[in-house]
């Protein structure tokens, strides 16, 4: 039996016995071989004394069991760490923030509670994966899409609570509606219209009356979400793509400006900015991006010409009735044609959209489509994860994902400053992708670019991992100094990111701590998550 900090072994043993009474002995895990499965396989602290390790795991099958476990944990002061499917790799896996926590593994709570085909929503439990939800929609033969990331092995609830980005919704949290939560004292709460007994608009109207509470349960440790509603999207009749490419570094600002103007009118869904040149490993290109400054615009343009590769590439997707998407395509094509030197084609970004001139039409049977095409109609995949993994490191990776204003100027500045930070510390920064982070499906104007930079993790070289931690910590600082921040990060870095949210003497985290103390007075839920610590583990803030 492993140890729980601050709890004597005999007391922990009693707690485990109580957990066993609640969920059955077979659903309580204490052996090393079982708990090894709860290590974060992509941990940047792999094999080091600081690696976050669970002391046990318990897997309930119902809300009532979750409540009973929480009450027992309060009684014995056992720290819990809730996970859904635990596959948030690159941003943290199943391992807790606070070593010695007992993982509350919700994978057995895997029921699709409701699918409403007329109002296009579903209500699910945390153990439901995107694959499970897709299977349920197919089983019912419903032509509906659940917004999902690549890959689809995670859970809608876990992903949304992390503000994961999905297709077609954008921010999956913004695509949710209504939740059920077990608070730190075991109390059961329903938000929005769910607070009304038998409320019939729980999953369609998000706010209820009074303050909206849902947001406080994302990236936090105030409760354990046991149900959540999500919007579903009808299959579009057609999907068209417009690819915009340039061999000129300075065209970026105009490309972004025109695409933004189109999207804020609800014309097209943007992909973000990709750089085929910046991602290639061709020696001439690597040599320039390794040098301080990362090359001038003229040098980059010369490289693009020599390599016959676009410096920047964007795409717009148009989804809906045939006549509408045709008209949108034509409007966007005309607007973008005004930028001299721009290359336009009716295709997607290679690797994430159709590579040829196709109009994807909603099929009678998804099996008639390629996997790429079928993903537009909600078919999840494991392949995208494979592609990322094979491209970078099979040992694992860590994402650095700062958000910045959606302008070409700011994106070029970020590449310069963050790139130089990497280069000073002998890390490579080409021109990593900047995904569009918004509620794109709604045609929402509020959006940002999210640079997704991948750092490889080693299973055998802790010195390499130490240097990677050092560079990412410095990047977090440089980003914050320029008004940018990561939107999501791994447990090992959450404290550092939260520390940069320091407006008015850290008023934000101080308010989070007030809420924490109120809803989880014994501090048993997910201690340290996103820098929110219970009172007894709180350190003096510098």
């Amino acid at each position, binding site marked *: 039996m492993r140890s729980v900090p601050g709890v004597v072994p005999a007391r922990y043993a009693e707690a485990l016995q109580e957990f066993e009474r609640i969920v059955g*002995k*077979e659903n309580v895990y204490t*052996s*090393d*071989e*079982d708990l*090894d*499965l709860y*290590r974060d*396989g992509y941990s940047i602290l792999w*094999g080091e004394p600081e690696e976050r390790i669970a002391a046990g795991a318990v897997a309930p099958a119902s809300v009532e069991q979750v409540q009973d476990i929480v009450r027992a944990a309060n009684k014995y002061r056992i720290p819990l760490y809730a996970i859904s*499917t635990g*596959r948030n790799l690159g941003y943290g896996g199943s391992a807790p923030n606070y070593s010695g926590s007992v993982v509350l593994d919700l*994978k057995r709570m*895997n029921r699709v509670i409701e699918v409403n085909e007329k109002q296009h929503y579903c209500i699910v439990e945390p*153990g439901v*994966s995107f*694959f499970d939800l897709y*299977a349920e929609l197919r089983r019912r033969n419903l032509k509906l899409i659940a917004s999902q990331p690549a*890959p689809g*092995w995670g859970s809608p609830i876990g992903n949304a609570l992390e503000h994961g980005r999905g297709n077609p919704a954008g921010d999956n949290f913004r695509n949710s509606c209504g939740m059920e939560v077990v608070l730190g004292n075991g109390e059961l709460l329903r938000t929005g219209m769910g607070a009304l007994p038998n409320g019939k608009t729980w999953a369609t109207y998000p706010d209820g009356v009074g303050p909206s509470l849902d947001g406080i349960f994302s990236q936090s440790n105030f409760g354990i979400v046991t149900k959540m509603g999500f919007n579903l999207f009808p299959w579009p009749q057609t999907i068209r793509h417009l690819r915009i490419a340039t061999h000129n570094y300075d065209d970026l600002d105009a490309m972004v400006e025109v695409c933004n103007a189109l999207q804020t009118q609800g014309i097209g869904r943007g992909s973000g900015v990709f750089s085929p040149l910046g991602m290639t490993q061709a020696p001439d290109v690597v040599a320039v991006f390794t040098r301080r400054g990362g090359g001038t615009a003229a040098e980059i343009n010369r490289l693009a010409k020599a390599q016959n590769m676009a410096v920047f590439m964007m795409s717009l997707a148009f989804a809906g009735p045939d006549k509408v998407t045709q008209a949108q395509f034509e409007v966007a094509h005309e607007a973008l044609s005004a930028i001299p030197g721009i290359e336009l084609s009716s295709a997607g970004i290679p690797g994430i959209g159709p590579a040829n001139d196709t109009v994807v039409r909603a099929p009678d049977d998804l099996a008639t489509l390629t*996997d790429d095409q079928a993903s537009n109609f909600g078919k*999840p*995949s*494991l*392949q995208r*994860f*494979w592609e990322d*993994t*094979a491209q970078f490191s*099979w*040992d694992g990776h860590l994402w650095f994902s700062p958000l910045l204003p959606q302008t070409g100027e700011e994106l070029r500045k970020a590449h310069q400053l963050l790139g130089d930070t990497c280069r000073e510390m002998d890390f490579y920064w080409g021109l990593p992708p900047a995904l569009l982070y918004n509620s794109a499906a709604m045609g929402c104007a509020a959006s940002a670019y999210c640079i997704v930079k991948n750092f490889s993790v*080693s*299973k*055998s070289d802790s010195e390499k991992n130490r240097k990677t931690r050092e560079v990412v910590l410095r990047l977090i600082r440089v980003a914050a100094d320029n008004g940018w921040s990561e939107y999501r990060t791994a447990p090992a870095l959450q404290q550092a990111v939260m520390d940069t949210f320091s407006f008015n003497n850290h008023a934000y985290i101080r308010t989070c701590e007030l809420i924490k103390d109120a809803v989880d007075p014994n501090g048993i839920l997910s201690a340290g998550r996103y820098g929110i610590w219970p009172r007894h583990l709180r350190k003096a803030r510098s």
Partner: protein
Amino acid sequence: MTNRREILQAALAAAVVLPSFGAAAAAPARMPLCKVLYDPRTRAGLAFAATAKRMGAPLHATHGDVTGVWFDELQPQWRQHRTAAAGLTDFHSLFVLDMMARDAGMRAVYIATHQVCARDRFEHRLFGPRDLIRQASLATAGYGWASSAAGIVTSFPDAVSVAAKYSSIAEARNIELTPCDLVSWVIAPPRRDI
């Protein structure tokens, strides 16, 4: 620590004697397999499949992406009965299938890594039940090691423990591989002493 016997140089190892179905009656119970995956694009995959087929294994060809076999075949099967699967694939295919298998209370109980060390030459490391690994060895000639690997996974004993006392499988979590390397593996419900 992995001992010298567990690091098998193909050039040094002796050929494994494959158990036949006729001989299986006297041996410990074999683990039933619902699918045995291989990649027909590789010579090793073809050699592996040929032997697995002789052993009566339910073969399934993959081409890198295991989404289809997992979603259409393994997951429905695992929802009904926890039945083992095996294969010779790239590491990533094993990695994702191992992750998905955990939802069904299963996991990798045996992993052999086959790392490219020169043209058509591989270095092999085996992780799993210590008794089995002590006895196992892989053939040397050509891609004979892949046939041997198929023999091991298709005659794998039923109900193995993954406790460190009985198994070295935990050490496999520290392995470092490249996309060129291959792994043979068994995913199964382990014996839990609770």
